[in-house]
């Protein structure tokens, strides 16, 4: 007989941040119907409040001041509310909040102001948060869809502009394809282990390896397919093709949000699936997990391709699109490091630190492009930056900070992220990946500094408009980037208690 679990068994309390956000989005869906078209600022405010409340709950849970629910597991072991969940929640919610602030004025001036925008953004943030909390492969899949589908729609939000529609279509088709890979991979892992629950998978994989049965090939292929599916989300080579086109075509505020949120979700899921579920997939005793080599090779390719191709870009959105690919490569090094026994926790911490640093920096950089962009989506080329420093000194300074942070220059958050990633890479003996990582960082300095030199060294008509909400978003992102860079312990203390429960 199927037994309906009681509400207290579900342990809803533990899932409060994400439940609140999702419920808020549902309620807002109805409320928005009664808000007249010209007063959509109310929807924006309500969204911000919803995200803010959820953020407060996440921070409370993170600080340990309040314990929500009883125990870590919720919804029949589907949801895991641990330190990783909390940090991923905070990262996703901050990104969502910045996303709302960046979008508001843009939607206003391009006459796209519709309540759905904010609601979709909330749903996708909930998806990203769920990916970090997944304790079951099925949740990974559902959360991925919850994250992605709103993003497909948001990419096409500038209907009937062709570039935006093309971007949405491309993203959707390829994204659906990637989801197929993911679900097939999950199915194979299920086939090999008889379960989709990550702790049980962890256990079963150890058994499969010990027995040396043919099932280990299923696990191997399954892991590969999951990597492909999630690799698509985080834009890792060779699943990156969609990124430049989608980012260039989609409305800039959407890119500001999704370039970060999709990475947060994707990497959280990678850490959960590989660092947690498949960390026992060790084919020779004493060796690292069998997927480690594949992931670091993917990381190396991703860093090389992203950084090298970014050099020749002349459009700022496209340049940053390749830069996001490159950054996926850096984070993947840390994911690969999780394959070394005993380093799962440290690797997960590095991933989270990098993601939070990246959230401020990348959202900020796209926010600056939003400020520059004209109503007809023009003025996003590198040349449009010429002389920006004389006309908008603070905006240019913020952009310079973001670029230096993306390069990984000390005293910015980006350096802290790279520091921890390369540190764990060396601990895991992934020297080659780390060397490629630092060398490509040097390459990346060229194109990031080109942005700075356009703004500061060239004369020109560079101009931008920064209405209050956008200015606040850029200010918060810039201050966040600098503060996290100057006080790295804020990040490391936040992440240091991340443990993958049964990893060791």
């Amino acid at each position: 007989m199927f037994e309906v679990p009681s509400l207290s068994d579900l342990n809803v309390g533990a899932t409060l941040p994400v439940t609140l956000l999702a419920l808020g989005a549902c309620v807002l869906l109805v409320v928005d119907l009664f808000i007249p078209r010209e007063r959509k600022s109310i929807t924006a405010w309500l969204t911000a409040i919803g995200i803010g409340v959820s953020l407060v709950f996440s921070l409370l849970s993170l600080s340990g001041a309040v314990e929500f629910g009883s125990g870590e597991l919720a919804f029949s072991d589907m949801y895991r509310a641990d330190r990783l969940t909390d940090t991923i929640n905070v990262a996703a919610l901050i990104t969502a909040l910045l996303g709302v602030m960046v979008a508001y004025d843009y939607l206003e001036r391009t006459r796209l102001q519709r309540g759905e925008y904010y609601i979709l953004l909330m749903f996708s943030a909930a998806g990203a948060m769920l990916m970090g909390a997944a304790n079951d492969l099925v949740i990974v899949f559902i959360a991925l869809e919850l994250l992605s589908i709103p993003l497909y729609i948001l990419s096409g939000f500038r209907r009937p502009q062709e570039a935006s529609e093309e971007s949405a279509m491309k993203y959707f088709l390829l994204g659906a394809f990637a989801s197929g890979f993911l679900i097939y991979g999950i199915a194979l892992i299920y086939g090999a282990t008889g379960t989709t629950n990550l702790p049980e998978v962890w256990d079963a994989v150890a058994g499969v390896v010990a027995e040396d049965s043919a099932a280990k090939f299923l696990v191997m292929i399954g892991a590969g397919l999951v990597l492909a599916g999630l690799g698509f989300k985080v834009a890792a080579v060779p699943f990156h093709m969609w990124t430049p086109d989608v980012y260039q075509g989609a409305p800039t505020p959407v890119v500001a949000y999704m370039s970060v949120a999709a990475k947060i979700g994707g990497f959280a899921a990678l850490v959960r699936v590989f660092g947690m579920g498949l960390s026992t997939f060790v084919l020779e005793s004493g060796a690292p997990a069998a997927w480690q080599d594949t992931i670091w090779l993917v990381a190396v390719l991703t860093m090389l391709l992203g950084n090298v191709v970014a050099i020749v870009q002349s459009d700022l959105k496209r340049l940053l699109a390749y830069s996001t690919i490159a950054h996926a490569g850096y984070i993947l090094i840390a994911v690969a490091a999780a394959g070394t026994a005993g380093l799962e926790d440290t690797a997960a911490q590095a991933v989270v630190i990098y993601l939070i640093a990246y959230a401020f920096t990348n959202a900020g950089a796209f926010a600056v492009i939003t400020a520059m962009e004209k109503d007809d989506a023009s003025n996003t080329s590198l040349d449009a930056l010429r002389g920006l420093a004389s006309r908008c000194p603070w905006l240019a300074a913020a952009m310079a900070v973001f670029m230096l942070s993306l390069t990984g220059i000390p005293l910015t958050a980006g350096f802290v992220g790279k520091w921890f990633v390369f540190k764990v890479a060396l601990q895991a003996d992934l020297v080659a990946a780390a060397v490629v990582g630092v060398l490509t960082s040097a390459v990346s300095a060229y194109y990031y500094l080109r942005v700075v030199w356009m703004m500061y060294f060239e004369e020109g008509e560079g101009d931008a408009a920064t209405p209050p909400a956008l200015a606040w978003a850029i200010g918060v992102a810039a201050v966040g980037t600098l503060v996290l860079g100057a006080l790295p312990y804020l990040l490391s203390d936040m992440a240091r208690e991340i443990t993958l429960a049964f990893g060791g």
Partner: protein
Amino acid sequence: MEDISLVTVVFMLPLVGVLPLLFVRSLSEHTMKWLTLTVSLVTFGLSLLLLYNFDTRVAGLQMVQKWDWISSDSFTIRYYVGVDGISIWLVLLTTFIMPISILASFEPIKDRVRLYYIFMLLMEWAMIGVFVAQDLFLFYVFWEVTLIPMYFLIGIWGSEDRIYAAIKFFLYTMAGSLLMLLAILWLGNEAGTFSLPEIFAKLNSGELSFSPSTERWLFLAFAIAFAIKVPMWPLHSWLPDAHVQAPTAGSVILAGVLLKMGTYGFVRFNLPLFPEASETFAPYIALLAVIGIIYGAWVSYGQDNVKKLVAYSSISHLGFVMLGIFALNSSGIQGGILQMVNHGISTGGLFLMVGMLYERRHTKMMNAFGGIWRAMPLFSGLSLVIVLSSMGLPGLNGFVGEFTILLGSAGSQVLSLWFTVAAAVGIILAAVYMLYMFNTVYMGELDKEENKRLPDLNWQELWSLIPIVIMVFAIGLQAGFFFNYMDSSVRDLVQYLGDTITAAAGR
């Protein structure tokens, strides 16, 4: 809250000075100039106090400040600053050069003044940071941060090819230092701490040790970063570009202080962390150093651009410093450190001179001048002192440094005597190109019409050259005073090097 060390005060003061420049909108250009100058002068004054409080008998760090910055179960990163005999003069050099560079910018810099002085103070902050940092993380942070203000100084206020020079400068140095980052991480992972004194303690007690091949790799990772900065031949190609394109103050800082970060790095990190590898690589590095000495001198002689001539002469002078350091004995290293200071003063002075000529004639070509002495006697007289100091005339500062270095390299157990011989040839070449330059620009007939009415020094120029000339004589005549401060620390270092090397030979 514990007491705040004087080192922290000297270190943070320039950063505090940035704040009004950033946030007070109503400052006039005049106020901004004077504010920046005042901040840098107060910093210099406080750094003199540092000298006063320094105990020359102590070999280790003094006036230490230690706060935890990032702590975790497996490692700690600290805000850990202090000075010892190796770094004290470099801190002083920085605080000495900065007011001079700022004063020398009063006239030439008319564009985006606020930004300029913000970057000047950030530059000073970061450079002091490099010399006082005792934690590898902290050191790396400031090592990289120095790139940013210099990138902007060259890129915004430089001459025609400034963008190319700025980006080349940045990429060259950054590419090198990233490998050092990996080496630092590796060291930190092994040692469980990034604090230098703790790492030394662990190395001493044998708690931490490297296999010879690891030690060599680590040595090389650090060495490449430093060698690019010095710059050693053949990694020098960024330097002429950066120097020639940078504004005068930028060149002064670049030559005066930034290059010393590289040589300082060798003394602070490579020698004590990797003594055996230092010994192994010493002849190779000395060879590159000597090639640099001869090459720099040779190429200098071929220049018709004064600024380029001075730039290439830096390669030659820094070759001496490297030769001294890798003699791995007391006089070599002491001479090397003193020569770092000397080069900062003399070459800083030379770049100021070039800047003053350029301000008057808007050209740096030597054949545009000639017979300047008749038009500008005061300027020419001071220039002569600086030129002679750079050449190494006895009684002036350059001689003491170079002589001590040659003494060190001749007595070195790891270097063959031929290095000393070759370096001595370099001294002769230095006299050739310097006197050739002085002859073309200052002596001879004042035959060009535009040169006849050149005004002599104004008060800012005069006051930026006078301290330099004073120091040229002070170090030249009272070198003992300067050596005295580094004596204990260097003796300690050499002792340690000797012990480990003998121990390794005995194994």
